[in-house]
Every structure is written in structure tokens, then in C-alpha cells.
């Protein structure tokens, strides 16, 4: 299953096949840093809205696609909010990966992690964005990762994600 997390309206996502889209269809609560998704209801965010099961959904996908406006070299506030609320995808315990401390996986899925950024960017922001996708992929223990920058502010023109 492909899971798409995006700040765009659904009709702008031209993916086909088995796909689930998490988009800005309803308002989202910000993460409150309580770690309840690790130590109270492990695997699920304790905040009650349409986004509390994102960690589980990531755990079921074999491809995670992020389509986001590039903001300061990172994701847009909405996409970042979804990701902040989904840290239950990983386990609270730690491991050493590439000589650095990271989290152990909770799920057995090995996913391909693909990020599509749109919007105006500077060369420095694109460098930060590339490193961000690599860092996320390492923390998610993803099988592969790729970053694509879509030209301009209107991703609708880019029909072949």
C-alpha cells in the first residue's frame, strides 16, 4: 500500500493503485510532546482527531510519499504536524545506526520513502531538504529514499509524480 501525506487537496495527487491519502481535510491538533503514543497507548496518538492513527498507517505501507510545500528547507506546517503526531511509527527504545543514536523500529515494513517538494526554494533550502529526507529515512529505517523538487508553486502542472 502507498501512503501519501500531503498539504494539497486530494484531486491534485495523481497516484494510481492501492493508495491512501492523508491530507488537509479536517483540522489537526498539534503534538503536545506528552509521549503518550509511546507509553500510554503505544502505537497511537492520544489526541482525538482524524490524524491519531497515522503511525499505524505508516506501519502498513510499503511506500510513504510526502508531497509538501518546501518551507525553510523543510515540510509545510500541516505535513510536519502529521509527522510530529506519528512518531509512534518508531519504538521509544534506541539503537545505534550509522554510528548515531536512533529509534528502534516498531513495525516490520521496509518502506520506500519518497518526498516531493514544491514551491520556491533557494539552493541552501534544497540542500537542507535533501538532508532532511535522508535523515527521516534513516530514522524510519526506510529501505530507500528519494527527493524530487517540483518547479514553481503550482504542482498541478506536474502530472507524473
Amino acid at each position, binding site marked *: 500500500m502507498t501512503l501519501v501525506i500531503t498539504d494539497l487537496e486530494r484531486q491534485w495527487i495523481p497516484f494510481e493503485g492501492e493508495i491512501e491519502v492523508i491530507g488537509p481535510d479536517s483540522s489537526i491538533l498539534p503534538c503536545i510532546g506528552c509521549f503518550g503514543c509511546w507509553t500510554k497507548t*503505544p502505537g497511537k496518538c492520544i489526541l482525538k482527531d482524524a490524524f491519531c492513527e497515522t503511525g499505524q498507517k505508516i506501519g502498513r505501507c510499503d511506500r510513504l510519499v510526502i508531497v509538501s510545500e518546501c518551507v525553510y*528547507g523543510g515540510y509545510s506546517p500541516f505535513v*510536519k504536524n502529521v509527522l510530529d503526531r506519528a512518531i509512534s511509527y518508531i519504538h521509544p527504545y534506541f539503537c545505534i545506526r550509522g554510528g548515531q543514536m536512533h529509534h528502534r523500529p516498531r513495525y516490520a515494513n521496509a518502506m520506500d520513502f519518497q518526498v516531493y517538494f514544491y514551491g520556491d526554494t533557494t539552493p541552501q533550502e534544497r540542500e537542507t531538504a535533501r538532508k532532511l529526507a535522508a535523515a527521516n529515512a534513516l530514522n524510519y529505517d526506510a529501505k530507500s529514499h528519494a527527493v524530487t523538487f517540483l518547479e514553481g508553486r503550482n504542482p498541478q502542472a506536474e502530472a507524473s509524480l
Partner: protein
Amino acid sequence: MKILLINGSPKTKQSASAALLDDCKACFSRETEWRERHAARPVFSPEDAAALSWADGVVFVFPLYVDGIPSHLLSWLRQAERSGSIRPQTRIYGMVNSGFFEGEQNALALAMLKSWSRHAGAVWGQGLGIGGGGALTAIASVPLGKGPKRDLGRALGDLVRHIETGASAEERYVHVNFPRFLYIWSAQMGWRSQAKKNGLTRRDLDRRQ
């Protein structure tokens, strides 16, 4: 020098960011005039705008979330940028802490804050990435520069000197002076004890729901 401190933690108490801010305030000289705002929600208020306009230097202190800036603070920053309330020569400083041991893991969040400062028309001062943030509240009463806060004390002392003189400097990365394996062990004990308090067993931490 007028310094605005922004606490970017969503927590109202017992946050590593608040502990870092306390250490930072303790380093300020008497001549430094500082104010503090808490950006705990994705809401940028007129009071926040007034505080930004007042400041010669702004220091953001926040936790690392998913390799970047927490979304509520990101939203706050975007609104702050659009408000145009920052004066052109304002210096921006950032202190980011993460639960990971290596301070370098905060580099991307600092790069994003640096990018924001450019968009907001301000000047980048310096970033400090701090590893082992999970221990900061537990060692809050340890004097800066001593024991587990030895390297943090040195780096924070230098950062405060740059803030007070309106200087810019290279990013710096430190971690708590504590062996990494012990830090990991105690962090994991912390998760277990938290789970127990919530009526769960150690095994429950592995749940996939």
C-alpha cells in the same frame, strides 16, 4: 541590548527548553534587558509581534521534532515572517535540543531557523545543537559548566557572549557529559517506568495497535 527569548516547547512545565532558558538567563549580564514569550501553540499574537519589534536579538529554544522544527513553532514562525514585525538588523539565535545523544542531529532544525531568519529579513547569529536533551530536566539544578553540564556550560557561555554583543558565529554542537550507553540505558528505564505509571507492562511498549 534587548533580548527576546522564545520558548518553543509545547510543554508548559518540566521542559528541556525551559531548563536551557534558565541556564541562559543565569549567564546574562546585568546590563542585558530580556523578555520571554512562550510559543507553545501555533498562534502568533499581537503581543508576540510587539516583542519581536522590540528586540535587538531573538533566541529560539525548542526541542527537535522529526529532524526539524515542531509544527506549532513552524506555523508561528511563518506567521511571524508574514507579520513583518522583525526589524532588519535583528540577530537570530537558536538552541535546539533532542533526545538523541549527538548534538549534530539538531543541525537541520538550525538550518531551517537560519532560512527563516533570511526570509524574515533578520540576520543569523548562531545555532547551538544540544544532544542528550532527555537528561536536561533531571540535571536542571546542576551548575552550568560542571559535571554533565561541562561542555554545555562552555558552549552556552560563548553563545550568550555572542548574543550580548550582537555577534554571529559558526554553529556549535554539544551533548551532555555522560557516557552514551548510560544515557540510553537510563532513557529506556524512563520509558518503562512511564509505562508502568500508566498501568502498562514493558511488553506493551511493543504494541502495534
